[in-house]
């Protein structure tokens, strides 16, 4: 074995504890990364199997070829196909069976009166296909619906709504339909297609409630006869299909469904997790670098002796790097094992919390092992590189010097470089935010800001610790003063230790600030553009359930207490070849309940060929009142519309408004997303709200909210996201905490004699513990303060850049309470990190400490 390797191995054996922190930092980061990858693969494979099984018997799907996709939607809207086509298809040679597939939105109401689902995944309803091979759902219990009002629901939905066979409940389509559950179904062997709920009804019911008119279906499922392949079937079908209708194989259809789930849910999910494991590993970099820097500093004499005895620079560097490799490899390997364990645990946990995790073993691909392993090793070795190089540079003379304590300070160059970076980042950011709004420039500025914080850290740490620690002298006397000065001893080390926490806190506060700004934006949106008294709405987060009955608004308008009630429905069309969402409503009274800003032209006379557009869209398309524009609907029809009004504000109303009469020929299943109600003068909000609620009860009891409640609930999804983000960031903060603890432990080791002296001259154990704890809190306070400042700045940049770069305007908000909580958590983390090192320091044997050479 070569000398360098032998040295590093013996040193690892001797001082294994020192690397415990490094080990855990790498371990946690790698485990998170590997867990994410394994879980992503497993989920994807599970969904593949599930869809494969569920659609096994479907060999081809016939559907409209026209699809209109609006921005921000992964799945386009298709026109229906005529059910009459089924007979034509059945006559095609090679076809064994064909069945219309009618799909729409249908939200069940649970036994407690609350709607089932609707906050995320879609709530679907459709016809129950009699041919079990063509039906994606299998009957698990009970029977198929045979007469109007009977339904089969998927088992997951039944469980969530506490519904059982024989129960009678309401299905919102969105008009309430009384239904009796006669059977429970499974999808691909699971309780459901993830969290999607499904209600299967008779074909007649489905046509009645889910389509605009009878004789239409979303698609037609076709089964091939014996010996006929899927491709063959599709080629046989294609000639008999009318124009605008296409046939695809069952496999393609299954793949589309899987892709949809992947893009809607899995990709988002795994990307989010990968970003956070990246942050965790970035934080880990600081901790690892710091550990090695300290270890190398402590070993100066030893390394110098080696150099004096004839070891080359390379040998000394190699010995440190070998140590780092050993830690990196073990920690990464352990991390992969841990990550696989996490994935297995989640697989077991998901069904328990009502999320049907597709069955099947864990899918561990080469990539999900190799990537985290390489990342772990690279992060660990990369962080140890500089300290190792420094170890190699040790002068042989250093062996003769007294101290072996790292007192690395802040050089003038560092201050200059950091200052330059900071100035550059501010310049670039301000340009990107204020002068020429660009997310790229703002992003570059943000990265530069981060870099300048890291470079300036040691320069700032002295000043910051002095300021932050000033009250300690008075509060805690000599104990506090000693803690403060210990934190000041090695500005470079303090900065690196605090740097890990700083990144964590910065990301937390960035999200906090951005979340608060989004909420403020929504609040402003509602208060600016909602002029009604109460709103009846569906959950704003996710698919929104089945929406609101289009008959609700007219029913409300008939109430004596109500002056105006306007429902906003949703339609899609291509405007000049681009998919756009249309708002289908009653434009005449629209202005009474929504603030549309300045209106040119008149919303009163849109008729069936008039359209109203926002100023922004009008400008973009060079349209003005009196001009015509062509809309293409999903049914393939092209209609010319005349712009009759141009309005200023679009937040709630959308960019294009047409009348219900204009939409009617092209409609599918109708639903409103929002009904705005204005009361007659003299009607109190409480009275009016009661009236509206009473009417709404007849339409499936959607939520009735005052303006403020509506604004608040619009922002509820943001809080949910923030909670998730906080949970994920806890990992980064934990790694930072380990870093602080590790640095302190190493520092205490360095100061053994000093601590011994303090104890000898009368420092009590309690005082010693307090001293170490306060040092930890001070370092954490520095990191937290830096993180808060950086996070708030980056949050501002993000908000302003989004404001400048997108059409909708963003509000910037600093939530003082939440940020105070973040600060407190940072300080508490510091106190927590100091606990163990403090206890260890206090256990120190005085005599041995002062005798230590």
């Amino acid at each position, binding site marked *: 074995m070569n000398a360098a390797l032998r040295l590093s191995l013996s040193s690892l054996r001797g001082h294994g504890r020192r690397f415990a922190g490094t080990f855990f930092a790498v371990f946690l980061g790698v485990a998170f990364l590997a867990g994410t990858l394994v879980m992503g693969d497993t989920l994807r494979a599970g969904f593949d199997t599930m869809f494969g099984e569920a659609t096994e018997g479907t060999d081809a799907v016939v559907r409209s070829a026209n699809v209109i996709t609006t921005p921000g939607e992964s799945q386009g809207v298709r026109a229906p196909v005529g059910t009459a086509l089924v007979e034509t298809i059945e006559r095609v040679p090679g076809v064994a069976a064909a069945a219309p597939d009618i799909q729409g939105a249908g939200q069940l109401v649970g036994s407690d009166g609350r709607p089932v689902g609707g906050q995320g995944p879609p709530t679907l309803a459709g016809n129950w296909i009699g041919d079990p091979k063509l039906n994606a759902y299998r009957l698990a219990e009970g029977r198929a619906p045979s007469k109007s009002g009977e339904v089969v629901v998927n088992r997951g939905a039944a469980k969530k709504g506490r519904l059982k066979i024989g129960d009678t409940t309401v299905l919102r389509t969105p008009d309430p339909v009384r239904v009796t559950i006669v059977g429970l179904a499974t999808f691909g062997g699971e309780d459901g297609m993830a969290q999607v709920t499904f209600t299967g009804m008779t074909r007649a019911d489905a046509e009645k409630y889910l389509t605009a008119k009878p004789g239409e279906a979303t698609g037609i499922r076709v089964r091939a006869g014996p010996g006929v392949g899927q491709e063959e079937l599709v080629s046989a079908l294609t000639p008999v299909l009318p124009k605008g209708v296409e046939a695809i194989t069952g496999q393609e259809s299954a793949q589309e469904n899987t892709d949809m789930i992947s893009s809607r849910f899995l990709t988002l999910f795994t990307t989010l997790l990968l970003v956070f494991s990246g942050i965790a590993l970035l934080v880990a970099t600081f901790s690892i670098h710091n550990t090695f820097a300290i270890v190398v500093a402590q070993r100066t004499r030893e390394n110098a002796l080696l150099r004096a005895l004839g070891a080359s620079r390379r040998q000394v560097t190699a010995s440190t790097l070998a140590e780092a490799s050993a830690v990196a490899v073990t920690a990464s390997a352990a991390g992969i094992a841990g990550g696989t364990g996490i994935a297995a645990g989640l697989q077991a946990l998901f069904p328990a919390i009502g999320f049907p995790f597709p069955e099947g073993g864990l899918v561990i691909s080469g990539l999900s092992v190799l990537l985290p392993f390489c990342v772990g090793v690279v992060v660990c070795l990369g962080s140890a590189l500089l300290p190792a190089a420094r170890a190699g540079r040790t002068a042989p003379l250093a062996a003769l010097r007294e101290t072996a304590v790292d007192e690395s300070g802040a050089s003038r160059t560092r201050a200059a470089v950091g200052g330059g970076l900071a100035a550059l980042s501010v310049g670039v950011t301000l340009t990107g935010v204020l002068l020429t709004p660009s997310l790229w420039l703002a992003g570059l500025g943000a990265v530069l800001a981060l870099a300048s914080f890291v470079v300036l850290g040691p320069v700032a740490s002295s000043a910051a610790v002095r300021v932050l620690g000033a009250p300690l002298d008075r509060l805690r*006397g*000599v*104990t506090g*003063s*000693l803690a403060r*000065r*210990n934190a*000041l*001893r090695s500005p470079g080390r303090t900065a690196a230790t605090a740097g890990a926490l700083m990144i964590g806190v910065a990301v937390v506060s960035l999200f906090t600030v951005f979340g608060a700004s989004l909420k403020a934006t929504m609040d402003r949106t509602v208060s600016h553009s909602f002029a009604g008294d109460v709103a009846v709405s569906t959950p704003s987060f996710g698919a929104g359930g089945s929406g609101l009955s289009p008959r609700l608004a007219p029913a409300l308008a008939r109430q004596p207490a109500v002056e105006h009630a306007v429902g906003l429905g949703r339609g899609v069309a291509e405007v000049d070849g681009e998919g756009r969402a249309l708002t289908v409503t009653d434009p005449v009274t629209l202005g009474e309940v929504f603030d549309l800003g300045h209106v040119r032209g008149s919303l009163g006379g849109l008729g069936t060929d008039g359209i109203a557009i926002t100023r922004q869209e009008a400008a973009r398309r060079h349209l003005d009142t009196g001009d015509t524009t062509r809309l293409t609907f999903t049914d393939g029809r092209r209609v010319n519309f005349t712009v009759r009004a141009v309005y200023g504000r679009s937040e709630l109303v959308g960019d294009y408004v047409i009348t219900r009469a204009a939409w009617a020929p092209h409609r599918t299943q109708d639903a409103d997303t929002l009904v705005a109600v204005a009361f007659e003068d003299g009607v109190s909000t409480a009275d009016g709200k009661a009236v509206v609620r009473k009417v709404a009860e007849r339409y499936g009891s959607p939520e009735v909210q005052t303006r403020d409640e509506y604004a608040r609930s619009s922002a509820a999804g943001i809080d949910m996201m923030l909670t998730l983000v906080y949970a994920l960031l806890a990992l980064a903060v934990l790694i930072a905490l380990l870093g602080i603890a590790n640095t302190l432990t190493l520092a205490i080791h360095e100061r053994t*004699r*000093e601590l011994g*002296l*303090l*104890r*000898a*001259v*009368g*420092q*009590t*154990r*309690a*005082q010693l513990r307090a001293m170490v704890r306060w040092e930890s809190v001070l370092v954490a306070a520095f990191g937290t303060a830096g993180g808060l400042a950086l996070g708030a700045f980056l949050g501002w940049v993000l908000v302003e850049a989004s404001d400048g770069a997108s059409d909708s305007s963003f509000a910037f908000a600093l939530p003082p309470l939440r940020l105070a909580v973040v600060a407190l958590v940072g300080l508490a983390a510091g106190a927590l990190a100091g606990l163990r090192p403090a206890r260890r320091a206090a256990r120190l044997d*005085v*005599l041995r400490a*002062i005798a230590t050479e």
Partner: protein
Amino acid sequence: MTTATARPDAARVVDAVKVYGTGDTAVRALDGVSVGFPAGRFTAIMGPSGSGKSTLMHCAAGLDTLTSGSAYIGDTELGALDDRRLTLLRRDRIGFVFQAFNLIPTLTVAENIALPMDLAGTKGSRAWTDALVDVVGLRDRLHHRPSELSGGQQQRVAVARAFASEPDVVFADEPTGNLDSRSGQEVLGLLGRAVRRMDRTVVMVTHDPVAAAHADEVVFLADGRLVDRMENPTADKVLDRMKAFDGKGAPV
């Protein structure tokens, strides 16, 4: 100075036994030592390496515990005290000067001197501290850090710190071991002056006959036993006495 016995002992050990290790590897560092260190006197503990002189000092000062026997500071029996009370006793009633590394590098000279009082949260006597600073001659260095002082200056600060809280007894463990002879003389002179002019008590462990000659009395230890005492020592007398240990390994 034969009147010394009239005064009570500032510190003493009775039948002190200290055993390190167990079984075959057990070493009796102290083997039944009884000795008193009278108040107002400068006592030196001498003996060859491994004679147990440092162990005796550590046990007498409450830094280490005896295997059997008892140690007293004034009338306080140290064996009866828990770690906290022992710490407070060291803080309030004992001063220390070690061979090296006596000062906290982050504190200034003035802060180092005041450290025991600051730890106790008391102010101490301002006049006394002031007088001390003048005696050790460091008035112009009060706001310097230890790293800016020479080794001799650092030890003088350590001496000032040891006396600052007016302790019953100051223990010095080879205080001149790391110094050149001139600086060593200064430090020893300081210790001697503190005893004679300010009526303090000093117990010093040393292996240097010249250092021991500054004391009022020298006690000799060999193989963990008290073997001799010498009043009014001189360097030559001590050297002769030490030579007697050499080769024989046992007292006369």
